[in-house]
């Protein structure tokens, strides 16, 4: 409940007319195009992707049709009105409590047979339902034909064929929203035995409910705790009678109630689709399907992954983003043009040197904070998010998930964790937020730990790659160290943390060519989020650094940390980089960059410093998100562990390198 409330509040945009506007709820399986339809109806934007279960939150928007206002609610994907996961619970909450004037069930034409049982459940609940059979274009390409009018007659509700991504069917959907329908009595029924059992419960229900009594009876028989609570509070004294009845029937049919019900629904769907849905004798195998096959076979999938990483991450994000773009923005834009100009302006208007320093000094808000944020981080993060969005929309991630599931299992994670892990290479803070989509608390903690420790974010990665690229041996040692630590800590975490790894299952969406507009909007929203969250931190960090400098706090800190640095075999100036690193890891890496250009570090020291810094405390923003998502205890434990582990590994690596003298 609290989950839903929290979500709801942050989406109550002022543009949504709540006063008496009719409510339209979009429901359906994951990945059938609800969000696309929502965007088309409201003109608002929710992230659309080709990854099942992307909309964890409820989005609300305002649609105007023929001058009338409607409130449109986009719900997370649900497979059935009996919820299993948190997302499904959130979606059902809306059906149960919000009294939508219209429920639009969106489903995938190709999977009509599999998804229709939910339509049956909605009709049975006597909700005002309109069925949108979406993705008709791809279905037609596969040679499927669907008789929409016949379907509508048999279901007793309006049915619309659509391809919302291509804007087909939108006028009909708008008209249906405008016309609005009432709940109808379902034109289908179950076996006499099942109907008898349902009646035994539904006749005992005396209260007033939003869902039909038949539907409630079925949910009670399936052991739905939320509905049981609702009935208990509504029925008052009669609740005992209902509960008795439910208990008896549940016991009577304990063997296979769920299965019997599913089988009966399957039978009904078969009857409805008879003659209304025809598939070609031979399956049409499209080119996209053939490519999709290659991505999931280990023999071709692993090389393909390496190619994707090489071109996407190394070439595009690394060389183009962190190289060419940074060069243009930071060196040419800031250092040569903007900084000298702003320095002149500030010096002209502000006579005090101390205040001048705050803005344009070595750690100035503008010359350091803004320059880092806009000149270095922006191009790297932008290219990364672009790369990520393209992959996401192509449908590659679910395939990557199944490819790495076995490996991730050894670390107490399932393939599902691949999304936060890959996203971590962009921004660990954002990735830590995304870990909430993982199934169990245990998985979330392990993923959070690994993100904090061993996954360098794109900004950091960019700087470190630039730093180490001059000595290939150092780059190799650094990569090997991080991969080993990632696996080792994952393995240990899985051993130490109690609990079981959940099973892995995932719907694999078809591979699609990403749509440019969609990719761009998505990249843009992610960047926007990044800037709103991150830019203030850059500025605060600059201010703190400035304070540290004028109060000589830094010098003291550097002195304190010198013994630690010495034990790692590093010059004491590196302490500055580590202090920077606490504010942002990439800041720290950039600090190293300065040291290296001054010629203060040899390859061994550089490698040790880079490894330690990569492992070292996540940036302040990530730490705050860790606290928000996992609570103080976990956040602080991870923080302490990561710090100790980082310096411990640095020390060991230094010993090892000294002994073997490989660098």
């Amino acid at each position: 409940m609290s989950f839903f409330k929290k979500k709801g509040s942050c989406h109550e945009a002022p543009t949504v007319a709540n006063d008496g506007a009719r409510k339209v709820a979009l429901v359906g399986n994951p990945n059938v195009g609800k969000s696309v339809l929502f965007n088309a109806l409201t003109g608002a934007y929710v992230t659309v992707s080709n990854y099942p279960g992307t909309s964890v939150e409820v989005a609300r928007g305002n649609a105007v049709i023929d001058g009338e206002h409607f409130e449109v609610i986009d719900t997370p994907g649900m497979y059935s009105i009996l919820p299993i996961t948190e997302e499904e619970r959130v979606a059902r909450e809306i059906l149960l409590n919000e009294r939508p004037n219209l429920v639009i069930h969106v489903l995938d034409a190709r999977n009509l047979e599999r998804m229709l049982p939910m339509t049956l459940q909605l009709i049975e609940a006597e909700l005002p339902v309109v069925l949108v059979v979406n993705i008709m274009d791809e279905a037609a390409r596969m040679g499927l034909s669907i008789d929409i009018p016949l379907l509508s007659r048999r279901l007793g509700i309006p049915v619309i064929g659509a391809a919302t991504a291509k804007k087909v069917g939108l006028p009909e959907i708008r008209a249906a929203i405008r016309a609005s329908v009432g709940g109808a009595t379902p034109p289908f029924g179950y076996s006499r035995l099942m109907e008898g059992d349902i009646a035994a419960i539904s006749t005992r229900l005396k209260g007033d409910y939003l869902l039909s009594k038949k539907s409630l009876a079925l949910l009670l028989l399936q052991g739905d705790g939320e509905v049981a609570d609702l009935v208990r509070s509504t029925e008052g004294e009669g609740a005992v009678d209902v509960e008795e009845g439910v208990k008896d029937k549940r016991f009577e049919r304990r063997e296979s109630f769920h299965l019997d019900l599913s089988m009966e629904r399957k039978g009904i769907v078969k009857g409805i689709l008879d003659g209304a849905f025809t598939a070609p004798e031979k399956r049409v195998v499209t080119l996209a399907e053939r490519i999709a096959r290659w991505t999931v076979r280990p023999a071709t999938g692993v090389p393909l992954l390496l190619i994707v990483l090489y071109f996407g991450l190394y070439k595009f994000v690394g060389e183009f983003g962190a190289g060419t773009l940074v060069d243009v923005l930071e060196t040419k834009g800031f250092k040569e043009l903007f900084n000298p100009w702003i320095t002149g302006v500030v010096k002209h208007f502000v006579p005090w040197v101390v205040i001048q320093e705050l803005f344009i000094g070595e750690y100035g808000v503008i010359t350091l904070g803004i320059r880092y944020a806009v000149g270095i981080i922006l191009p790297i993060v932008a290219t990364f998010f672009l790369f990520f969005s393209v992959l996401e929309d192509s449908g590659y991630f679910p395939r990557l998930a199944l490819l790495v599931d076995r490996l991730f299992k050894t670390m107490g994670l399932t393939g599902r964790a691949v999304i936060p892990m890959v996203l971590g290479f962009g921004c660990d803070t954002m990735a830590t937020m995304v870990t909430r989509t993982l199934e169990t608390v245990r998985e979330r903690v392990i993923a959070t730990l690994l993100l904090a420790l061993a996954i360098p974010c794109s900004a950091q990665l960019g700087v470190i790659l630039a730093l180490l690229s001059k000595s290939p041996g150092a780059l190799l040692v650094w990569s090997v160290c991080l991969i080993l630590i990632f696996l080792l800590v994952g393995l240990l975490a899985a051993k130490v943390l109690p609990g079981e790894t959940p099973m892995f299952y995932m719907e694999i969406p078809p591979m699609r060519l990403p749509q440019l507009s969609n990719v761009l909007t998505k990249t843009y929203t992610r960047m926007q989020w990044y800037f709103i969250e991150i830019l203030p931190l850059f500025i605060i960090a600059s201010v703190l650094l400035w304070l540290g400098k004028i109060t000589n706090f830094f010098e003291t800190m550097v002195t304190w940390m010198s013994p630690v640095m010495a034990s790692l075999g590093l010059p004491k100036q590196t302490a500055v980089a580590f202090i920077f690193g606490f504010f942002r890891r990439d800041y720290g890496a950039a600090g190293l960059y300065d040291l290296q250009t001054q010629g203060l570090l040899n390859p061994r020291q550089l490698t040790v410093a880079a490894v330690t810094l990569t492992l070292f405390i996540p940036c302040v923003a990530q730490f705050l998100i860790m606290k928000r998502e996992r609570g103080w205890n976990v956040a602080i434990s991870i923080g302490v562990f990561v710090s100790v582990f980082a310096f411990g590994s640095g020390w060991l690596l230094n010993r090892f390198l000294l002994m073997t003298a490989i660098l």
Partner: protein
Amino acid sequence: MKLTEKAEEILEALWIESEEKGKGFAELDRMEFEASDPAYHELAAQAFIEIKGGRLYFRPEGREEGRKTIRRHRLAERLMMDVLNIRGENGDMKACQFEHLLNEGVDAKVCTMLNHPATCPHGKPIPPGECCEEARKSGDLGVVPLTELKSGEDGDIAYIQTEDSKKMQKLMAMGVLPGNRIFLLQAFPSYIFRVGFSEFAIDSAMAREIFVRR
């Protein structure tokens, strides 16, 4: 005439010594029961065994009887473990009691239900019965978990066997329903299958719980 439980156990022990270890006999003083036990007389009286010079030997009818007895014992073990989920020592003990009920055709029924297993939970061979031979001849491969299918093969979903009802519901919502056709597209590193026009990936733990008729 039905043998006593003790007599059946003697036959089993003799089968292991004489047939499986290939000795052709069993030492009387190394048997579980005293040489004076009436069960030996019972077996000798029915011409199942012979006792010569402190050694037990099968007679032809006895060998056949021993074969059937050991088969019943190991089927009982399988039943305990696979279906009733009673494992370890307790399972062995229960199997010892249960095996004596598996005669007069009950063994064939149990064997068919278990899809004619070839080994007991300890890996020892279960001698095939007539039912196994018939099944092999008719080419009826019976119901196997999805993990037994090769990629590219398909079958009809027979049933889902899971103790977790949430998982069951999830599978059913995914279209894994008895009677639906399932195509296995790939078995490594994860199982990828198609039902209808959708594809799904699951891990081997889940694949083991989906049973398919080929």
